[in-house]
């Protein structure tokens, strides 16, 4: 039996290369969720009283709420008392990378995010700069390029630090896009969130480099609840990347994040995600439950937010990055690739709420299902009475590989003004045998052919990704679909 398990694990390892575990000493909160645990987290983070009260308020609201059941996903009930809500590497906060636990440094190197090299590269001319915030379980362990960003006036730091150093910004914006009682998972996150990234781009500043956060769940039975808050002031611009991985575990891991974006007048935010949490094995054992609330508020006139996401991991994905188009002439975009294989379940999409005049939104969603997976696009386009001149274009394309998977498109459209234009196009197709054979007759093996055809199918979205992510994404698509044919 043990042998069987080892064999299975080794085989799985070939597929999910981020599945290793890091041995570091950690400090954990006891299992369970109650006021004491929340006080414990707040104390660990050395938080001001107002933050603690905010959390407790969220906790009490959460207790009144019910887990949503409307998504097309099925899973065993989660026992919220059987989780750790805080886990942190023992070593305290660090000043430079030299102080970081070498095991953690190695972890990020293995993940292809060499933190140290990121810093070294800074000296190399022409090397692309990407500032990285590395979040390991419940805490941010390192943020690179901080000084250089500070010079430009950009604040990029762990949110736990922002709470202490920039309370006026945090108080003003935290929960202003996703209110604590927005939904069950958002309330839970608000009560127990441990870390995440904070970005503030001041008036008229174009952030001089890409910012990125890499989330890593390492500990067993530990939920990850990160919180990201990005504010771009008038005329500012930032491009932000988010990547996520987790070790392979037989049990499910819970990830419930909240991301809030605020764009003021003429500001622009480009937010890209490559989500590659452990998807579980072929039978559906293990894998991350990914329940995420991501929302952008285009608060200012002429503001713009683009969400680009590549979803390949997680056992269950429940995620709808949305835009509130409040400012006149504001623009919201959603470009998505969602791949599901084996027993994965994806219910994802977006909400575009048009409140301001002449607001525009564009939704391009590419869903690929293989194996026995279920892939649902769920989208809402809502145009309010005052949003005259609003326009939306939606295109949802689904691609099926094999006979046992499913693709579903659930568009909701509400238009309350006659002065708006909404277009919706949807297609579902299968990889044609003819296409596969054509590739194979040219010497391209079947799996590679599938990856090639799928990459073609999602090209429009891939082109929206920052350069650094393009090649990785193309490779990831190949890996995610391994074993999907034959």
């Amino acid at each position, binding site marked *: 039996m043990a042998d069987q398990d080892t064999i299975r694990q080794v085989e799985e390892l070939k597929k999910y290369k981020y599945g290793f575990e890091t041995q570091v000493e950690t400090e954990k909160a006891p299992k369970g969720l109650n006021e004491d645990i929340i006080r414990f987290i707040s104390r660990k983070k050395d938080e001001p009283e107002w933050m603690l009260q905010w959390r407790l308020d969220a906790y009490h609201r959460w207790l009144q709420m019910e887990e949503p059941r409307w998504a097309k996903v099925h899973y065993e009930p989660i026992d919220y008392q059987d989780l750790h809500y805080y886990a942190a590497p023992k070593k305290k906060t660090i000043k430079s990378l030299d102080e970081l636990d070498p095991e953690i440094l190695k972890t990020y190197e293995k993940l292809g995010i060499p933190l140290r090299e990121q810093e070294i590269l800074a000296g190399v001319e022409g090397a692309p700069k990407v500032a990285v915030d590395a979040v390991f379980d419940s805490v941010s362990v390192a943020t690179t390029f901080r000084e250089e960003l500070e010079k430009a006036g950009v604040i990029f730091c762990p949110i736990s630090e922002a709470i202490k150093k920039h309370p006026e910004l945090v108080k003003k914006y935290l929960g202003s896009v996703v209110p604590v009682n927005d939904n069950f998972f958002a309330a839970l996150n608000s009560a127990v969130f441990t870390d995440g990234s904070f970005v503030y781009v001041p008036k008229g500043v174009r952030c001089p480099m890409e910012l990125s956060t890499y989330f890593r769940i390492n500990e067993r039975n530990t939920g990850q609840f990160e919180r990201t808050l990005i504010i771009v002031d008038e005329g500012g611009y930032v491009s932000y990347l988010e990547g996520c991985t987790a070790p392979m575990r037989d049990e499910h891991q819970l990830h419930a994040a909240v991301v809030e974006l605020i764009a003021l007048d003429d500001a622009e935010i480009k937010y890209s995600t490559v989500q590659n949490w452990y998807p579980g094995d072929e039978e559906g054992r293990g894998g991350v439950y990914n329940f995420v609330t991501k929302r952008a508020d285009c608060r200012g006139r002429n503001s713009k937010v683009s969400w680009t996401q590549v979803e390949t991991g997680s056992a269950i994905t429940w995620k709808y990055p949305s835009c509130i188009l409040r400012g006149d002439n504001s623009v919201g975009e959603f470009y998505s690739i969602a791949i599901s294989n084996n027993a994965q379940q994806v219910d994802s999409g977006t909400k575009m709420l048009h409140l301001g005049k002449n607001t525009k939104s564009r939704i391009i969603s590419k869903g690929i299902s293989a194996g026995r997976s279920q892939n649902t696009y769920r989208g809402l386009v809502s145009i309010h009475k005052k949003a005259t001149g609003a326009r939306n274009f939606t295109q949802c394309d689904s691609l099926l590989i094999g006979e046992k998977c499913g693709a579903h498109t659930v568009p909701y459209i509400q238009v309350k003004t006659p002065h708006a234009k909404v277009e919706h196009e949807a297609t579902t197709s299968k990889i044609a045998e003819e296409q596969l054979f054509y590739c194979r007759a040219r010497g*391209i093996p079947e799996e590679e052919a599938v990856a090639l055809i799928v990459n*073609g199918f999602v090209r429009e979205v891939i082109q929206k990704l920052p350069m650094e992510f393009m090649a990785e994404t193309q490779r990831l698509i190949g890996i995610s679909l391994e074993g999907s044919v034959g």
Partner: protein
Amino acid sequence: MLLEVKDLRVQVRPEDEEAEGAVKEILKGLSLAMNAGEVHAIMGPNGSGKSTLSHVLAGKPGYEVTAGEVLFDGEDILELEPEERAAKGLFLAMQYPVEIPGVAYMQFLKVAVNAQRELRGEEELSTPDFMRLVREKAQKLGISMDMLKRPVNVGFSGGEKKRMEVLQMAVLEPKLCVLDEIDSGLDIDALKVVADGVNALRDASRGFLVITHYQRLLNYIEPDFVHIMVNGRIVESGGKELALKLEREGYAAFQDAA
């Protein structure tokens, strides 16, 4: 011998008829032999099984071989995957080239070249070397680099698709080229360009199996042998004069033989 097809019998199971016995035999004991350096033409009426033969040679799924052998370079290839046959040097220019949206032709070609090399245990071709190779071959076929940036066959005209098939062949340098109606849809000038492309590849180590309906192509690509295929069998073989006879008399005479 480059290719030997011996008494090949092939059937298909039409898709929506699950019932036992709902099979259709298409190739009914077909034999054919060709040496390296030779050009063989196959002519035959619509539905006689020419494309089926080409598909079975290339390993397309969906056909059931019930009897016979296919030896390529002396090796039985019927159990090999299509990609393995391709890597061994078998190329099929298809009657209906397939569209692959979103995949640039250049990328497709590069993946194909390197996939074949990998299957053969050879090193990857570097991007500059690959580009040089493609540019040179494309120029000869009058194919612009712009065309290679477009997705594979999407929106290409019939003639352009055929031209691109020949480009693939030129880049992949196979040993056996099966050309299924490479002349259909070509205008007079394009026919000449494509034929020149094929002729440029003719050499002592390479063989061509040219499937066509029109004698005209054979004026440009001169065959060593012409085979007439009717109802799943080769019913007559001869030199290139056979094509002329066919042009004059039609298939009636041969149909009786079948």
